[in-house]
């Protein structure tokens, strides 16, 4: 050991190594978390404040008084029926589309995928206007009399937007299901249809519930397309969202808020259903 050390180093005594040398100092994580909480928390607080304001503005009497009006009762009934029909129709369409997009690579798949996202990004008013224009062309023109500004228009307008959300949900659902399970089912003797019905659909159950509740909630909230394509005729094509608009336009703020509370209650119910029976990681 002594031979390797030079004469210079040998003369000075070795000082003890300070405890901090070679240790990497890291700043506190607190500012990071505080920043995230402040940003996120502001939004959450705003949401809660908004709902609280609605609740405090109205009272159970207002809500009951609003519910007593025949126009609003009709609107409530039409909303419930049309949203349910829209949800069913959306599922009917979204399940095959979602399955095909998830399972098969076909030419133009990305384009179709993008087109299916259009109703989500397009302003709802544009969707309504486009539907109106569509029904001026043949062959849609032939059905215009019994659709445009009539009850079927409510369902069609709701469907055009709600279905896009359902398709997205079903695409993600089928993406997450292992295709190997279907392949095994094929080797066990199934046709594609049997493999789909017996193996894939049961696995997709939670996703289907989520897609249905999403479509339902979305159609409840739809306003723009309905106004333009179905009109907001009292006792005919009026649904809860257009009721709020109509009550506001005649200056009855209390009734408008009362109906809004009804819609908030419906939205919360739907969210609870989606979380309990649906798929946790699919609720948009």
């Amino acid at each position: 050991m002594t031979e390797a050390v030079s004469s210079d180093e040998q003369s000075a005594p070795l000082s003890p190594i300070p405890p901090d040398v070679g240790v990497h100092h890291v700043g506190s994580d607190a500012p990071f978390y505080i920043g995230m909480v402040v940003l996120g928390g502001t939004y959450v607080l705003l949401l809660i404040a908004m709902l609280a304001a609605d609740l405090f503005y109205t009272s159970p009497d207002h809500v009951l008084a609003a519910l007593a009006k025949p126009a609003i009762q009709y609107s409530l009934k039409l909303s419930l029926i049309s949203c349910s029909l829209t949800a069913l129709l959306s599922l009917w369409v979204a399940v095959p589309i979602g399955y095909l997009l998830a399972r098969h690579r076909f030419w133009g798949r990305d384009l179709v995928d993008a087109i299916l996202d259009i109703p989500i990004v397009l302003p709802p008013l544009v969707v309504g206007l486009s539907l109106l224009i569509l029904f001026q062309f043949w062959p849609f023109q032939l059905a215009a009399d019994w659709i445009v500004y009539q009850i079927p228009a409510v369902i069609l307008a709701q469907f055009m937007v709600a279905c896009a959300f359902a398709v997205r949900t079903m695409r993600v659902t089928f993406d997450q299901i292992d295709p190997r399970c279907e392949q095994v089912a094929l080797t066990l003797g199934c046709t594609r249809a049997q493999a789909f019905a017996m193996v894939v659909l049961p696995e997709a159950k939670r996703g289907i519930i989520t897609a249905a509740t999403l479509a339902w909630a979305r159609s409840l909230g739809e306003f723009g397309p309905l106004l333009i394509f179905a009109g907001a005729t009292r006792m005919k094509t009026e649904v809860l969202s257009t009721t709020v608009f109509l009550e506001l336009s005649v200056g009855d703020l209390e009734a408008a808020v009362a109906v809004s509370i009804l819609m908030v209650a419906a939205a919360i119910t739907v969210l609870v259903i989606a979380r309990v029976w649906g798929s946790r990681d699919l609720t948009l």
Partner: protein
Amino acid sequence: MIAVEELSLCIGSFALERVSLSVPVGKYGVLMGKTGCGKTTLLESIAGLKRIQNGQIVLGDRTVTHLRPAERGIGYVPQDGALFSTMTVREHLTFAMVIRKNGQQAISRRIEKVAELLSIGDLLERKPFGLSGGERQRVAFGRALSFEPAVLLMDEPLSALDDETRNQMYDLIRRVRTQTVVTALHVTHNRQEAAELGDVIFQMEDGTVKEIDE
């Protein structure tokens, strides 16, 4: 028997060129090769799950090259078992027979036999969730054997198991072989599995398959 003659396929940038192999009736073939060399793809082509460009596939006395997977009479055990998460073990075992519309009595008899052979009798009412790796593999085997196929294809069925469970599976597979006449092709990259189980061993390399003598 399993016979592949001059099989060629091309998927994206991956290709198999004029691959041939033959496993005699009732024998156990083991296909080895490095990960990613195409063993799974070859197995899937034999099962009818991947389209081939050229060549013939003969299973038993039938040329099945253009038949759909459902018509080939194959028991297929994919990697990780791929069990049906919403079905009980019993439903896994009855699945193939229900599709074939077998009678209730025939189905019950068959389930009893398969469950006993694979020691899964006490798992019948359970769902895949919570089963151990060894139990899942046995259910996957049971499902594949439930309709008495002539051919069994297995894709690395033992790779996810620990040593002790794997040894138990060797015994199980030997037991199955004494009780059923099935021609098997077992894909693995594990030399010990090949030595323990294989009657005929193949090596896949650079898109070709050669039989090797051990």
